[in-house]
């Protein structure tokens, strides 16, 4: 570990001698490099980079985590992953989260952002309220909504009872559970996207909108022709975070459904947890991790390449 730190430092002396003579004489360059970089570098290498590399290595073994991995099984773990129905569910669910984010969450956030940036009393208060769920822990939000959806004591149940109907247990119904989860995701995260849009809206030059006013544009025309195109980069950023967030979703699912019923609400990370960690299948779990890593990196890179190259 220390070698990696020392190596770039060693050659630094020669590289620096030329361009700025004055800088080269500043005292304490060596102490800074030797004291300031290693802690971060060491920690990052040991707990982020090496585990990722090890995940790739372990993924080719059948290993329960004790002793050394010896039972090499090639690509078998990966084959197994793609044969699991639960994994396909997880992939579809992650896709659904992204879809709902783009089709419901982002428009909703933008719509609310345009309202709370209007000149009305209490706008700040509404912003705070809308942002509040984002600050709460996913676990707490999941737990609260488990209560809301509870078929006997929850809010949904109470509404059904008021109408004299029998309440459904949405979270226990494998056809309804994931829709219920999607609702919680929107509830929890729309405030964050709204804040992004508020920042975007505040950055728009007011004179452009005034010019549109003078030309007699209606509110909708102004929004469609002026505001929305100027918010392009914010929309792309917002969708980007929805994609990344979907790939990490775990904390909220556990208190809500734990991935059930019959794996209908698994996401990639809950799949990794229930099939890799819970069963101590280190090789298999690592392979899932690698798949998740590849998906993350591919999506992040191609998204940035395709949609955000000018932002």
């Amino acid at each position, binding site marked *: 570990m220390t070698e990696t730190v020392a190596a*770039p*430092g060693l050659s*630094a002396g020669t590289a*620096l001698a030329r*361009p700025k003579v004055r*800088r080269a004489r*500043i005292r304490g*360059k060596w*102490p*800074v*490099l030797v*004291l*300031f*970089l290693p*802690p*971060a570098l060491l*920690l*990052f290498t040991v*707990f*982020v980079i090496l585990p*990722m590399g090890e995940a790739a290595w372990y993924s080719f073994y059948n290993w329960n*985590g004790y002793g050394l991995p010896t039972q090499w099984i090639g690509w078998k773990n990966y084959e197994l992953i793609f044969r699991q129905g639960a994994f396909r569910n997880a992939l579809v669910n992650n896709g659904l989260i992204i879809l709902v984010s783009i089709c419901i969450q982002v428009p909703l956030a933008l719509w*609310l952002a345009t*309202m709370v940036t*209007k*000149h*009305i009393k209490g*706008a700040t208060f509404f912003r*705070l309220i809308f942002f*509040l769920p984002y600050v*709460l*822990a996913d*676990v*707490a939000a999941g*737990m*609260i*909504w488990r*209560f809301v959806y509870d078929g006997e*004591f929850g*809010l949904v*149940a*109470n509404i059904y009872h008021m109408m004299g109907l029998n309440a459904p247990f949405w979270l226990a119904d494998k056809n309804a559970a994931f829709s219920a989860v999607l609702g919680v995701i929107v*509830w929890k995260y729309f*405030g*964050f996207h709204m804040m*992004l849009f*508020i920042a975007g809206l505040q950055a728009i030059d*007011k004179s452009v909108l005034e010019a549109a006013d003078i030309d007699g544009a209606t509110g909708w025309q102004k929004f469609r022709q002026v505001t929305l195109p100027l918010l392009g980069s914010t929309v792309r950023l917002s969708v980007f975070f929805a994609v990344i967030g979907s790939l990490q979703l*775990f*904390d909220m699912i*556990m208190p809500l459904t734990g991935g059930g019923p019959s794996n209908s609400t698994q996401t990639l990370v809950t799949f*990794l*947890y229930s099939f*890799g*960690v819970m069963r101590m299948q280190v090789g298999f779990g*690592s392979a899932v*991790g690698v798949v*998740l*890593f590849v998906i*993350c990196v591919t999506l992040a890179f191609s998204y940035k390449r395709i949609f955000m190259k000018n932002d």
Partner: protein
Amino acid sequence: MTDTATNPIDAAKAQTPGRSLRFGTKAYLYTCLIIFAAVVVIPLVTTALGGFKTLGDLRGNAFGLPSTWMVSNYADILFSQRYWLQMGNSLLIAGLTVFLTLAFAAMAAFTFAHVKFFGSQFLLNYFLIGLMFPAATAILPLFIRIRDLGLLDTYWGVVLPQVAFGLGMSILLFRNYFRSLPTELFDAAFVDGAGYLRFFWHISLPLSRPIIATVGIISFVGSWNSYILPLIMLNSESKYPWPLGIMVYRGEFSTDWQLILAFITLTILPTVIVFFAAQKHIIAGLTAGAVK
């Protein structure tokens, strides 16, 4: 890569100046806003109220005020050791995480911002790899590493990976901020014979309060709310932070919803209070990482 450190998102910022709106428009705006605010607030308020109810009351009257206020639901939790223990654990883990993240990230970012050395760009990019994937991808090898280091079931087993995974973003934020400080400061300090170390300690850090707050808030909230790392690294209940504690509590009192609701309310209460007390900083902090 616009610099949000100097230009944060501010919820309280004055609204768009403009002519006052027509009554109809206003009525429409308020109706929509109130409906959505209700959707956000009702689950939270009914949770807090539910903690005061009896189970039977909850079944028939989840929305209304409790018919009898069962203060004991809350009192029992507040006088129990487990609640304070979990809060203390969370606070300790978050405190250590914030301290180490700030120290390590600020130091590393300082070298990236000011010290010219071979491979500096390469090393910076190395740290930015950490932004691309969540801790979950490497969770099993991470578990094995922590186990082999003998840190399983210790606070450090949670803190160190949390710090490590926060470094990428934190270094990026610090570095951009350090670079935005006026260069005249350096020239003046260096002419006066200050070295890098003194410059860092006496000039960079004192000027960096806004970014320290931002990074501190991001890592504190992240650690306070984190679930998956403690779930995998900690075994003994006496070390559990509150998100794990809430799950255990629910496991124990599976259908006593009134108790679970009281417990949820008490665990999220600190977050809600701090959020409203310091909303400006928290919103700016949590969105700064996003708009980096």
